[in-house]
């Protein structure tokens, strides 16, 4: 039977079990939207294509299933770019579908034409410009396979309008033929043996766990692995939730705004076991002194990450979940009392804490959100101080519960991501912890949340500043607050104008009751927390410094 390219696309998406698409229509995707009209796929109309990309990204991170976003050619496609780059940096399985001008107009600077495959070349795992409707079914199948396997990432499919409107036979694609793409799963046994030897010989091991633990679903294996070795676990921002933050072996987050005990432990360990992490500069600080006494084992599915930033003694290339199992098969339990005692001492001496003067401090707000949600909410964030406070004070214990823009650091990520999270996890309590700067970068998506009755809670840590930049200006630029003082709208009225509920909290005594009300509400809620304006995120490793040189 014959179908239009657009219908073949929809059939292929259904074959991939896509239940939700985040998108925005336009001229060159009219045939696709026409085919969607009768489809069993829920379409969520975001108010900006960037919002659609972030929502699809949030959906993917929360559910573990690929997120799908759809935009028209030209500006629609370029508006996806930040969202695609964001997914690329954090290894999120995203399939971005864009309309393109018909082949007859391609390359002529036609109306709303942009070379989106060219523009996104460095920020996609792979991309396709579809030449013929007969290729569509195969391309969609390949795109989902590539996006979700190995180290996941975004794949873009650019579909010219004549391809989506031309009628063609729909043939279910057979086995994929991708001779250049062979993601690894098991590690070579010699690598496992070498790693096991180094572990057995170590006295002061530290596990450094990244987002790879969550992506590969290895949280249970990591817990057993850490308990077997009795080794402390420091997580990256992306790794939060991959190891229970409440566990005695948890060191919390390491790096620039990590806990002192995590950073001390990394500085003094004799073996660093990197598990699905990529030695980002925000984690390592000054590279020359990072874990300088330690042998380094690097477990990662992406061979290109091994040896990219730091010298690695023992590379272990494989899927983290499988490799941890391989390792546990050959490892003996160990105790390491002295090392753990030392870490316990650091934990007592340098706890993660703030000066609580009973004013409305942002850290207190986040602790209260933690208390009231029992640590069971799904938390998204924007980027800045509030993001770091969330990482420090909301003790994450479950994978896929902390959803934040790590690599790219995209302000404006949190609210659309929360929409995607809520769409993928309808029964869960979802919070976007935001700043008064970030929230305005995609504020229009509040309309989407109201429109689709997605009861997200947006907690704005409103300090009247672009707080993180102000903090750097305070510390490194002699308090010259250049362009960081913000003039803000009335967030309560704004929320109400969009049809959401709005609250304002100015005093500590209002914090608990207003939060209770917000969580109970079945509508989207925005709470404007008028927090202390010049609070800093501490501790802090100054940029380019060693992890041992922490401020605060």
């Amino acid at each position: 039977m014959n179908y239009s390219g657009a219908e073949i696309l929809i059939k292929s998406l259904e074959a991939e079990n896509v239940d939700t698409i985040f998108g925005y229509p336009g001229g060159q995707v009219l045939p696709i939207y026409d085919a969607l009209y009768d489809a069993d796929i829920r379409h969520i109309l975001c108010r900006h294509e960037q919002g659609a990309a972030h929502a699809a990204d949030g959906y993917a991170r929360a559910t573990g299933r690929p997120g799908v976003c759809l935009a028209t050619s030209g500006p629609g496609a370029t508006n996806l770019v930040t969202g695609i780059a964001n997914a690329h940096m954090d290894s999120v399985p995203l399939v971005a579908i864009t309309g393109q001008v018909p082949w007859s107009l391609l390359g002529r600077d036609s109306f709303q034409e942009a070379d989106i495959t060219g523009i996104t070349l460095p920020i996609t795992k792979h991309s396709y410009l579809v030449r013929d409707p007969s290729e569509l079914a195969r391309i969609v199948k390949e795109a989902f396979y590539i996006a979700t396997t190995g180290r996941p990432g975004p794949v873009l499919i650019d579909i010219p309008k004549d391809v989506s409107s031309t009628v063609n036979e729909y043939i279910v694609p057979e086995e994929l033929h991708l001779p250049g793409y062979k993601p690894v799963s098991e590690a070579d046994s010699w690598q496992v043996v070498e790693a096991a030897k180094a572990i057995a010989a170590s006295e002061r091991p530290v596990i450094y766990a990244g987002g790879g633990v969550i992506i590969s679903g290895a949280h249970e294996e990591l817990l057993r692995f850490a308990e077997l070795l009795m080794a402390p676990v420091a997580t990256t921002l992306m790794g939060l939730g991959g190891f229970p933050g409440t566990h005695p072996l948890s060191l919390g987050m390491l790096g620039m705004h990590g806990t002192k005990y995590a950073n001390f432990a990394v500085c003094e360990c004799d073996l660093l076991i990197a598990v699905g992490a990529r030695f980002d500069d925000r984690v390592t600080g000054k590279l020359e002194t990072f874990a300088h006494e330690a042998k380094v084992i690097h477990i990662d599915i992406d061979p290109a990450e091994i040896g990219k930033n730091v010298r690695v003694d023992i590379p272990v290339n494989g899927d983290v979940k499988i490799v941890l199992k391989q390792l546990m098969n050959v490892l003996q339990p160990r105790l390491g009392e002295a090392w753990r005692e030392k870490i316990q001492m650091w934990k007592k001496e340098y706890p993660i804490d703030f000066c609580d003067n009973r004013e409305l401090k942002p850290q207190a707000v986040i602790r209260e959100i933690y208390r009231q949600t029992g640590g069971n909410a799904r938390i998204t964030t924007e980027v800045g101080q509030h993001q770091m406070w969330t990482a420090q004070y909301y003790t994450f214990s479950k994978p896929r519960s902390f959803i934040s823009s790590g690599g790219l650091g995209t302000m404006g990520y949190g609210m659309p991501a929360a929409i995607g999270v809520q769409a993928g996890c309808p029964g869960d309590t979802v919070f976007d912890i935001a700043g008064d700067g970030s929230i305005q970068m995609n504020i229009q998506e509040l309309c989407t949340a109201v429109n689709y009755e997605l009861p997200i809670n947006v907690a704005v840590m409103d300090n009247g500043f672009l707080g993180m930049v102000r903090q750097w200006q305070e510390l490194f630029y002699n308090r010259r607050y250049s362009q960081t003082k913000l003039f803000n709208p009335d967030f309560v009225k704004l929320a109400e104008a969009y049809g959401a509920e709005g609250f304002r909290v100015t005093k500590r005594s209002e914090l608990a009751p207003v939060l209770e009300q917000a969580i109970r509400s079945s509508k989207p809620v925005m709470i404007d927390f008028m927090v202390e304006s010049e609070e800093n995120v501490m501790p802090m490793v100054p940029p380019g410094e060693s992890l041992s040189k922490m401020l605060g």
Partner: protein
Amino acid sequence: MTHTLAVLVENTPGILARVAGLFSRRGFNIDSLAVGRSEDPGISRMTIVVEGDDSILEQVTKQLHKLIDVIKITDVTRDDFVDRELVMIKVNTETSTRAEIMQLVDIFRARIVDVGPKSLTIEVTGYESKINAFENSLRPFGILEMVRTGKVAMLRGFKSITISDHQKREETN
């Protein structure tokens, strides 16, 4: 150190842009890049000459492998190999210099492919140092124009860099 990589890629539109873009955004230096069809019409073969130490070469190779359309990468420099480059040089000629240039053409086993009233166009193939020497010897006469294909390379002997060989090896692994 200079490495010569033989890279087999799927013959898809945009593959050259993917490879070239990768080199520029990761800050790797390409000395030369030559591309054309291989013995299999669906597979193109690139010869990439890259400058860098072992750690750079390792990153180049790993990053290239991440491109979905890249099937196989071989560093021929690690083995016994032959490499060649084809160059065309248009050189200024006067009646007084023509004989001398033709003598050089003989010595370097080059070929004259076009004769103009005031110029000769010469084709020469060979390994890099020979071509450089030829270029230098023509320079005093005035080189009007020069074009080089970039290096192509192949392993010596029966060993070959092909996909079937690659797949066979994968099956035995």
